[in-house]
């Protein structure tokens, strides 16, 4: 069944790749999002090159000039100048740069005399590509999972609760009396995890439970959506889903009337 879904996703991606780019869509997406800062940055960057060797992609590629941060945002200027008249091939080039030549670490900004935030502009381009159906498959899948299950790994509520209960049983052998409280109203701390933990690394949840137990903390895990604290939707510029993920966590915290939310890692 999973394979079928995968094939469908691949077909869809291929279909998107063949689709012609509508210049109006590009402009309509970019124009309202080109705020005062973006416009200023693109218009004042003097290409001094001080950002070059602050970039690990630049240094790790044997100082490939194409990796210079200020060069990577040329696409934004170009797309606006061309009024969105670009083809799929062009967007593919943008894709390769904004996903594989920049991980938005913002180190270049710390050395830029004008404080130009390259990462924010890369993020805008990722969002543009997402609106055109272009994003790494893993991220697209994760976004679907967030929308349906509230977590990136498609863990159902039953599986989540079962995993916690199993973790509790296993750990209680070692530390007598250990409990992993679920949905405990009025607890001090609401703990959230990376969805990979219940999926692949339940021992991480056990370790944390031990620490909370020994430290005598008043804590709880929410059973409903909001327990996954990763936000992969942010990385492909899907701000709507990104917002939903954060809001889920806030909703749970308010329902459970906790004082703090702790996140893993």
């Amino acid at each position, binding site marked *: 069944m999973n394979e079928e879904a995968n094939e469908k996703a691949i077909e869809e991606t291929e279909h998107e790749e063949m689709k012609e780019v509508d210049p109006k869509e590009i402009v309509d997406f970019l124009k309202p999002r080109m705020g005062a800062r973006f416009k200023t940055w693109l218009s004042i960057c003097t290409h001094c090159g001080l950002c070059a060797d602050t970039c690990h992609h630049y240094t790790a590629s044997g100082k490939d000039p194409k990796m210079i941060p200020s060069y990577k945002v040329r696409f934004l200027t170009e797309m606006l100048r061309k009024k969105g008249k670009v083809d799929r091939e062009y967007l593919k080039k943008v894709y390769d740069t904004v996903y594989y030549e920049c991980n938005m670490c913002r180190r270049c900004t710390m050395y830029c005399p004008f*404080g130009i935030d390259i990462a924010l502009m890369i993020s805008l381009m990722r969002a543009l590509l997402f609106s055109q159906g272009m994003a790494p498959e893993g991220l697209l899948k994760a976004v679907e999972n967030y929308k349906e299950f509230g977590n990136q790994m498609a863990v159902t509520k039953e599986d989540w609760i079962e995993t916690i209960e199993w973790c509790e049983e296993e750990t209680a052998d070692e530390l007598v009396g250990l409990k992993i409280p679920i949905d405990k109203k009025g607890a001090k701390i609401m703990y959230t995890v990376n969805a990979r933990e219940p999926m692949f690394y339940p021992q991480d949840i056990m370790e944390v439970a031990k620490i909370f137990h020994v430290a005598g903390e008043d804590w709880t895990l929410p059973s409903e959506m909001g327990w996954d604290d990763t936000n992969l939707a942010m990385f492909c510029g899907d701000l709507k889903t990104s917002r939903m993920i954060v809001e889920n966590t806030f909703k749970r915290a308010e329902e459970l009337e906790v004082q703090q939310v702790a996140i893993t890692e």
Partner: protein
Amino acid sequence: MDFYSFVEGPLLWIAILTFIIGSLLRATLFLSVSRKTDKIIYQHFSWKYIFATLGRWLLPLNKDVAKNPVFTPLAYIFHICLIIVPIWFSGHITLWEESRFEWSWSPIPDGLADWMTLIFLAIALFFLLRRIISSDIRLISTFSDYFILVITALPFMTGYFLTHGTLDSIGFLGDNMTIIHMLSGELMLILIPFTKLSHFILFFFSRGATAIEFGRRGYSM
């Protein structure tokens, strides 16, 4: 009115007013547009982070100094000469004294102005060669990067020729150096609000905005 009187009269007014009003408009535009499009600046507004970052970057107290020990000092000296010489050169102050404003202030010694001009031109040449020779900088350079460098260097070059009579033996240039110098200065002033040279004022807003963004995460940049 002959061309000379036009250049030293109305055109000078146009240049200075374009420079002042244009720059203020760019600043106003940033402030008014950002209120709608960049709310984060105002939600987390903090003079503390703004002053800290401007202090570090207006003075050479920032990360770039240690990372680029050659380029950064040169860039600072370049900008210092660019601001000091036109304002405090004795010849310019004399003109202000003779103008309707009769403004006056004490000049820097002419010898110093000479040296600052030469140093400025040498650094400008270095920047130009760096753009052409370094394959990195050449790739990222656009037309306007070369253009603003030439536009900025011209008034200094012609000013030096004018005060030293370097090209006086060359007919046309020798006879018209005053007007060429004035034109080059006016051209630069007029272009400031419309080109990257506007960074002289937008620098403050760009740095300030990013300092707030980083500051709200506890990093003073």
